[in-house]
């Protein structure tokens, strides 16, 4: 069946629907007028304002801190446990896997409030530590999924060969398994970092005023209407996400090869 002109135009309109709001946001971040959809000339003033906005900058720095630390920790925990889960059968293995399923299925809002209740119960004050725990928990199932996919076509005989040649567990892990799954580990890290940076639900519940991340600051700002410096920030975030996606795609291609 050949795709008709009518069908292509339908496809085209859906793309317009998907892209138009973002394009408008990006274009108007360079507009000289503070509000409205009338073009008043090219200007970088909102970018300037953004770099002087201590609220947004401190939110961005907090987001980067939490993103890097949670991605690193969750990748370590996730990689070690995925490898162990993959290699051995033990009592309770299915229980662990079903808990991971529950985590991946439960909406972020439920995860956010249930963790908030736990932190309250443990009398932990909300801030960096509680948000770190939340983001590790949020990303853990995704890290495991990425690594399970990679491990599923890992040749287990290589491990046996290494053992036969006298390698101990740690040597096998660091010299045999890790190098061969390393691209997946990097993908898992990038994925976790993105999830953490994007989290605009959990953080509202499990992070306090002492440590607010970017989505919280943006939400507070745009609740009261249009803020052109948020347009500028969105444009930068969009550009950076594109870059991360392209890098990830290239890495995945490398892995396939």
């Amino acid at each position, binding site marked *: 069946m050949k795709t008709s002109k009518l069908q292509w135009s339908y496809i085209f309109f859906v*793309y317009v629907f998907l892209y138009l709001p973002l394009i408008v946001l990006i274009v108007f971040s360079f507009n000289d007028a503070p509000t409205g*959809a009338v073009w008043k000339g090219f200007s970088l003033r909102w970018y300037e304002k953004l770099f002087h906005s201590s609220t947004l900058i401190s939110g961005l720095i907090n987001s980067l801190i939490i993103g890097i630390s949670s991605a690193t920790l969750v990748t370590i925990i996730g990689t070690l446990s995925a490898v162990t889960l993959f290699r051995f059968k033990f009592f309770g293995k299915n229980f662990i896997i079903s808990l991971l399923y529950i985590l991946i299925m439960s909406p972020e809002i439920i995860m956010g409030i249930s963790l908030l209740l736990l932190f309250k119960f443990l009398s932990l004050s909300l801030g960096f530590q509680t948000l770190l725990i939340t983001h590790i928990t949020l990303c*853990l199932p995704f890290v495991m999924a990425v690594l399970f996919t990679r491990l599923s076509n890992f040749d287990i005989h290589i491990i046996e060969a290494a053992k036969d040649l006298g390698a101990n567990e740690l040597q096998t892990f660091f010299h045999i398994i890790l190098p061969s799954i390393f691209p997946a580990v990097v993908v898992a890290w990038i994925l976790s970092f993105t999830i953490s940076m994007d989290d605009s*639900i959990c953080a509202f519940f499990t992070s306090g005023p002492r440590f607010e991340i970017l989505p919280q600051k943006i939400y507070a700002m745009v609740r009261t209407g249009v803020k052109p410096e948020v347009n500028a920030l969105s444009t930068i975030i*969009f550009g950076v996400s594109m870059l991360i996606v392209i890098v990830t795609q290239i890495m995945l291609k490398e892995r396939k090869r």
Partner: protein
Amino acid sequence: MKEHSLFHKVTIGIIVLWLLLFALIPNIIMFVVSFMEYDSSSFVKAVFTLDNYKQFFSDNYFKIFINSFKIAAIATALCLIIGYPFAYILARSKSKYKGLLALLVVIPYWTSALIRTYAISYMLAANGLINTILIKIGIIDAPLKLLYTEGAVIFGFVYTLLPFMILPLYATIEKFDFKYVEAAQDLGASKLKTFYHIILPLTSPGIIAGVVLVFLPALGLFYIPSLLGGGKTMMVSNIIQEQFTTSVIQNWPLGSAASVLITVVMGLMIWAYYKSSKSFQTKVL
């Protein structure tokens, strides 16, 4: 297999502890708190009560609850109506850029949903792009009230969640063997009959996956109704968010009860999905 080494014991220990402490126990606490009394000084009083649930099924909250499901259902239906033809055309096209076109659907999804919601509010605002264009070409004189309406909330959900509908549909239709269609048409079935009896049932796993992936997040994304509905369109997620963070009287047991109800609905939907995909496998394969 010989005895586990210390290395394995430690890694298994960490993951088990983590999941118990931060996945299982918090949900149990939430469940227990939903049956407790509200207390203004310590948030929760350890007295068993069903009042939180009763409150939900009696007054205003129930209306909001029903309205949330209505909005989520309309948004899901719209995603399906827009997404199915799109996925179908794309999956059946012979274009060599097919893969790239499918990727283009996902790219907007790589910016945060919060920013995309803001982009929508920017477009729908009184002096936003849509109103400006409509006034310029003379269709209307004064700006229409587009933002802060229920329609804006639905629009926001469709915009934010459409890729979650398109991708599973695309994946199922892509795998679909169109020889069945030829066979049905050779046997004299009309186009409509072929679609209804052959294509629709055989692509139903994709439809159900898409519905679950759109409907469930629609119940949880609280900032879409609050940014696009302007506080007038309340959803369950807003109640939960208010009870736990912003509200003056933070009634955590009530918020927990709302969360438990959402979790139950979610569990039922996932169970239905699992059942249907299983029966599908035994029926067809």
